[in-house]
Each structure stands twice: as C-alpha cells, then as structure tokens.
C-alpha cells in the first residue's frame, strides 16, 4: 500500500486516496475528430518507469494533486499542484 504525501495533510496511506488516472490529459473540444476523442477516452501511456497521474485525498481534505510515480518500484518521485506543469527532475 502506497504512502502518499498529500500536499495539504502530509503522508497518509493509499486507502484514503482515489487515483484519477493519467495527469495532464487535455480534453479535446467538441469539434475534435473521432480519432482524437477516442485517444482522449481510451489512450493511456503505460510507461515502465515514471508516470504522471492525478490523485485525490478523497477521505481527507478532498484536494486533487499530481504525482509522478515509478511504475516499477512504485516510488513517488514528485507531488505537485494539479494546475502546475510536470516538474523538471533529475533522471
């Protein structure tokens, strides 16, 4: 079970949180092509290594925030605001 650092509440166990899937997904406009819309709905990166995803501290303060998580070790490399760009990080 992950130990996640909520920006507002501090480190809490995973079961207090909800994972909202990929972070930084841009919602296409109504005029988007079928392919673009399908990619938005069903296309997901599945990297071996760092992945950005958004989490909500749903059984806590309710805050949504972004996380970079290593899909191999499950190490959380960064936690940053939902509106922020993906931070530069050392490889």
């Amino acid at each position, binding site marked *: *079970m992950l*130990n996640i650092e909520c920006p507002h509440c501090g480190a809490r166990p995973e079961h207090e949180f909800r994972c*909202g899937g990929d972070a930084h997904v841009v919602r296409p406009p109504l005029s988007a092509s079928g392919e673009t*819309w399908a990619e938005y*709905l069903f296309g997901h990166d599945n990297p071996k290594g760092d992945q950005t995803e958004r989490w*909500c501290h749903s059984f806590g303060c309710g805050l949504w925030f972004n996380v970079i998580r290593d899909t*191999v*070790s499950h190490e959380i490399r960064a936690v940053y605001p939902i*509106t922020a760009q993906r931070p530069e990080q050392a490889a």
Partner: protein
Amino acid sequence: MSGARRPGGGRIDRNRPLCFSFDGRTLSGFAGDTLASALLANGVDVVGRSFKYHRPRGVFAAGAEEPNAVVQLEIGAYLSPNRVATEIELYEGLVAHSVNAWPSLGFDLYAINDRLSRLLPAGFYYKTFMWPHWHLFEGTIRKAAGLGAAPTQPDPDRYEHRHAHCDVLVIGGGQAGISAARDAAQSGARVMLVEASSELGGRALWAGDAINVDQTENLTILTRTTAFGYYDHNLVAAVEDCSSGVAKERLWKIRAKQVVIATGAIERPLVFPGNDVPGVMLASAVQRYAHGFGVAAGKRVALFGNNDGLFDYATAFEAAGIEIAAILDTRRGEEVIGVKGRKRVRAVQTSRGEIACDLLAVSGGWSPVVHLFSQSGGSISFCDKRQMFVPDKAVQQVRCVGAANGDFDLNTQPWQSRAKGKAFVDLANDVTAADVMLAARENYASVEHLKRYTTLGMGPDQGKTSNVNGLMLMGDATGRTPDAVGTTRFRPPYTPISFGVISGARVGNLMRPRKFLPAHGWHQTLGAVFEDYGWQRPDAYPQAGESLGEAAIREARAVRTSAGLFDASPLGKIEVWGSDAARFLDFIYVGTMSTLNPGRIRYGLMLDENGVIIDDGVAIRLAEDRFLLHTTSGGAERIAAMLDEWLQCEFSGWDVRVLDCTLQWGTVTLSGPNAIEVATALGLPVEALPHMHFRADQLGNVPVRVARVSYTGEATLEISVPARYVKSLLETAAAIAGVTPFGVLALDLLRTEKGYVHVGADTDGMTTPGDIGLGRAIAKKTSDFVGRRSLLRPACAREDRLQLVGLESANALPIGAHIMEGSNAPCPSGGFVTSTCISPTLGRPIALARIREGRARLGETVKLFDLGQIFEAKIVAPCFLDPDGRRLHD
C-alpha cells in the same frame, strides 16, 4: 513407533503436562511443545496421507516449511483447516485430525492411486478429464485430493487489526535479528522486532547459546508474530497469535522507514527414491526436536547430506542419545539409493550396502528465506559456490542480515540421485523427479509453467522445501543453470493466514457502517419493514395480516387516490453557487441550466465522457448564482465528488463552489391528488406553486424548501427541512386524515406505471439519452457538456440500439427476461426486461424493457425467454398511465 521423549533437555515445561487428541486418540505433551513435537514424543509416525498417491506421511521439518504434517485443528465452529502441526503451540484439550485419508489414516482406500501412479503423471488432469467438461469430474477429484474441509459455521472468534509505525522493523528474532534490533534501538530509533515463535533466539535456542534482549521504551518486541506480506512503501503485514487474549489473532500493518529481514534459512532435502517414508526428516529438524523439545525423533539414525553440516549434526544427535548408524556424504560418493519400510523407515539401501535404522536425517544445503525480500521487489540471484539463492538488489528501504542474507559457508556440493524409484521433490503435492523430467520433455521448461503443470510448490507450504530442488532438476534436464531457470514469483502470504484475521472486526453488523434515516425510530413505530439501499429504508408498512407486496399495493393506491407520505431524506442534495455556477452546470448536465429562471426546476441527465447516463434528477435555481441539485439517492456522494473533480482539475479558475448537503437536509415527500391540501394544512401555502416550481419558506423558525416535482406521476411536493425536524414533520403530516405512509416498493410501482426510468435499473453502462427517448433536445444546445462528443459517434445514432419501451402481457414478466430474436431458444437476444410489476392502478402486468429498435416496433408482439420459460408480450409506449401528465398539474 520410533520417536520418544528424552528423559531431559529441551525448552519445554515438564511440570505442565497437557492432554490433547489426534484422530480421536488421547495423547499427552508438555507446555512448550508444538503439536508436531508432541506427536513425535508419543511415537506417532504417520501424521497424514499425501495429496495424490495417499502415501503415509510423517513429520518432516520443525518450522513453517513443513510439507507433510497438515492437520484440521479443532472441530465445529472452531474448525481451522490446513494448519501445520509444526506451527501449532500445544494447549490443553487441543483436538486435531489428519487430512487426505479416507476412511482412516491407517487404512486409506485412495492409496490405490499409489499403485496406479504410472497412470497419474504430471498434467494427468489436464490431459484426461477434459471431455466433455472438467466440471463433471471436479467434485470427485477434489474429494480425493482435498486438503481438509472448511468449517460450515460462522467463526465465533474475534480478530483485531492494528496499525503501527516505526523507524526500523526487524523481522526475525534469531541472533542476527536481535543484534540488528539492539543496535538500532541503541541509536535512539523506534524499533519493532517481530518473531514468529514464542521465544526469541532462533537456532541458538537449540543449537547454541541463547541470547536475551529486553523490551525497552523504543524497542517493541512481538513474539508469536509472523510477518507474511511485504507491500509497497515499506508496509509489512504480520499476524500475531494472541489466543490467550480477547482476540484470537491480530493483524499488524506496520509502516517502517527501514526494514531488516533476519528470517534465517531453511534446510533443503535431497531427492532420492523413498525420501518420503515417515522417518525421513530434515537433519535440522531432528536437531531441533532433540534440543528444543527433548524429543528423540528415532533411536538409530543414518545421516545423509552434501555439506559440512553433517558432522555437527552427528555430534548433536549423539549428545541427544540417538545412535548414529552411518554418515553418508555425497561428496565422498556415498549415497542412499532406497528406503525400506512403508509407514516407518526400517533400513536404508546405500552405496555401502543396507543399513538398519529407523531415522534418516537429510541435509541438502540451505535456502535463505528470501520470500519477504522478493515480495518487496528485491531481486535474488543464485550463488554457485554455496548452491543457494541469495538477496541481490533491493528496491525499497530494506536489507537482509544473517542467514537470510546467505551469510554462512557450508561447502555444499550439488548432487543428484541416479537411482531408480519414486523420488519426491515436493512432498506436499506428490511431485516426483520424474514429473519434473516429464514437464521438461513436454517443454514446460519455464519455472512458472513447471509450477502449474506439476503443482510443484503449490499448497499451504508453497514449496519452501521443494522449489529450489525442483528448479535445479529442471536446470539439469534442460542444460541451464539454476539462475537461468529462476524462481517463481514470491507472493504474500509467506505462511497461510486465516480469513478471520483479514476481516478483523468487520463482520456481521460491523461489515460496513449502516446509514439510518433521521426518523428511523418513527418508521419503526409504524411497523416498517426495512431494506438496505445504501440507507436503511422502509420497503413498506404492512398492516396486520398483510404481506409486504400487499402493503405496497395498498400504499400505491392511496397515493393515486388521496395522499401518500414518503421519507425521501437520502435524496441527493448538492448546492452549487458562484458567478460561474450556471455555465458550469451547462457543462455537467445534458440539458441547459443557464436559461432556468430563479424559482424554477428542470429535469436533467448527467453522462460520463462515454455518453453513458450516470445519474438523473432535477436542478433548482435558488438565485441567479445559486443552484440546488437533486440527484439520485445512491448518487449523491459520487456526483458531488465528480463535480469537485471537474472544478479542481479542469476549471480551476472558475468561481464555483460545491457543497453536498444531503445529510443536513431531510426530505419528506407528499404525493397524490390531495397532496397540496395536506401541505396547506401543514401551514405551507403552496396552492399557487405550479409543477416544476420551487419556494423557500418557513414553518415557525424552521427553514423549509419546497420543490414541486414528481416521481410518482401525481402532484408531488418534496419538502426539505433540516434533518432534525424530519421526524416531527412526518408525525404531523401522518396525523392528517387521508395521509398514508408509503415505502420504496410502492414508489417503484408508481414510477413504473409512469415509465419514469430508474438509472442503474432501466439503464446500464451502455445507455445514452437517445436510448431512453431523451435525445431530441440535445441538438438545440449550443455548448459542450460531459459526454457530448461521444454521442456524436455513429454508433450512438444507430436505429438498432436497445431502446426503452413498455411491455403489456397476460402474465407478469420476470426482470431480465430476454426478447427472443428467433422462434425457438436458443436464439439471439433482442433486449431485456428492466422493470416489471402488476400495476396496482390498472390491475394487469406491465413492464419496461430495452428492446432493439424498440420505438419503431410499437404494437408488435414478441416472445421472451427466462430460465426455460417462454412469455409473450406486446410492445407499447413506456408510459402506462396519464401520458399527458394531467395529474401532475391538477
């Protein structure tokens, strides 16, 4: 009968004798015994029958790795199957039974399987029992192969869960673990030390000098506690056996900054013909029984091994009064080629000739217990020199110390028997060396395939003594090193754990929190029959002699003819306000909410991004910048969370606030031709409030919100008051003449007559607004909304989608009955019934269904199929009563 209690020695308390029973025989042992040591002390040779061949099995090991001595512990409600005798501390009155033997341990009819073993090779089931279907054979095979029976009564014991945090968690209280814990504690860290057995000391307790360590303020010691799972971010789960306390077992979830694994090593057997006869044991186990429990496992022992440990064992056995018959060292070319005896070793056949003995102690090297390290994500590698898998790279904050790290040198040499005969690799699952060779020949050479094809390493012991031997044999057969063969993935739990301890206190009434209506007590006084709909809600209020269904019909008729009173408190109530609230709701709802005037109400559907209906309800405009959303009762929390997600993640700059106030406001529904009169009598001037209008009011000092909306088809008022006033409002309203309380069942009858959909019942994960006849208005809307782009897919515009219609039939239709697209079953399904009842108002069966191209087929008669029965029904419009909605407005 060969095992016996020695006159002295061991860590048992000879002043505290204990009685226990095994297979109905009353036996005795001492405090400090395990069930296994007590059985050996009583001279019990055969403790079970093997899984497949039903050969006699004796105690083989002394710890968690025991493959043979699996028993049923206790009886009745306390029955606990698949327990390992070496891990059960003896107590007064213990009752245990052997498994896999029928009709009895001494005479097992299934032992015929052993004679037929050439017909029962690995993969036998996969090859033989496939025609016509595996399930035809499964019951009989499982009975023959099963490992005991599950209890049939609820578990009367209590279990607990505890969370703990520490700087350093040390797993294993042997020498290495104790010194790691002591060092960490001295540095000031908060340390926890968990040890599976009842005493710290590990091997030193029976093979060296005992060490002591005291619990201090920053060192917590838990004995009888087995760490069984290593999860992400250094979370370790452990089970504490606390039978003497209030709870039977306690599940610890320990989050540690660092973990030290000091779980020691397990001795490996050797694979040779006859190595499963009772009396063949791990040498380390013989030593532990002798010096830890004062039990001589035999009178005359032959030692057989491939490493330097043999000579230490010989010294230890002699000191324990066991006569040494021979020491056979494979490194000198000596080996055992067969074992004489069936229920007990009588002699061993060796390269030096036959040697009479009743005990064969085997040592094939050691395997560090790398299970938890591997579970943590760490890699393991094979060390050629010491012939074992050792921890390699860690990915979490964890290190292995002592024997668990392979920190010993025994000069072990690999050896493989070339002798003919049934040589067992996995005693627990009856997997022989020949089975492994067969798997190799049939190209199940991957270690994961080997496991599944032969069952090697499955079962309660998870191959603790067999995995390494199995993969070495496979390596040999396929010309690969053990490293190249690799191991199967180590997964939790390290040892079997009970379902009880996983559930903890969350059983029965504590399974999950129950939600009660604010006026629950009032419903009880009316004789309500409750059901769990997420909330405990009245299904109906049966009167004397009335069934639940009859009560629902009476209540529904009262709503159609006079006035009904319903506790709708769980109704979702979400307030949304801010200067961007209207714009935001236009995005959330299929309908347009920005054009709604204050004081007005509009029905709305919510979709997900796939265009699928997830909720319906109404939006009420309280003021220019303030809305109140009524969602379905089950959807309130989910929808409020969804609104918040959109606002935080997509529209963070917008001025919108969301507040779920479902619990703060309770709602009382008055419905029926007399509903307005009743409300007036309550002091609410609503005569002039038209359908789909809202008014905020006061009853005395109590704020009241009145929404005129309907889910029954009758003129209806949803009256919301602060939750603590619901009971008095219900009481007052029920006292007015002609008012009948009604429950969820009556509401469902009423809405089905009107064809009002119940999201989740009449809709599913494929249903779009168009499918339920609500797609027409969408084209007029100019702005985007959740799921809109998905509705533009060609698939959503197809005419042959499942569309909501009504069905009329002579007989009541069952929910889930399929519309037949052929004259005889089996045939393709053309849709299915989603709601059904015998209409209390019309007095005949009606149903709602989603049928392929349904709207174009009104008037058509269709056949339906359900559980072998065939029905006939006519497709009609999905509204059976007052299609013009006059009753709503009167």
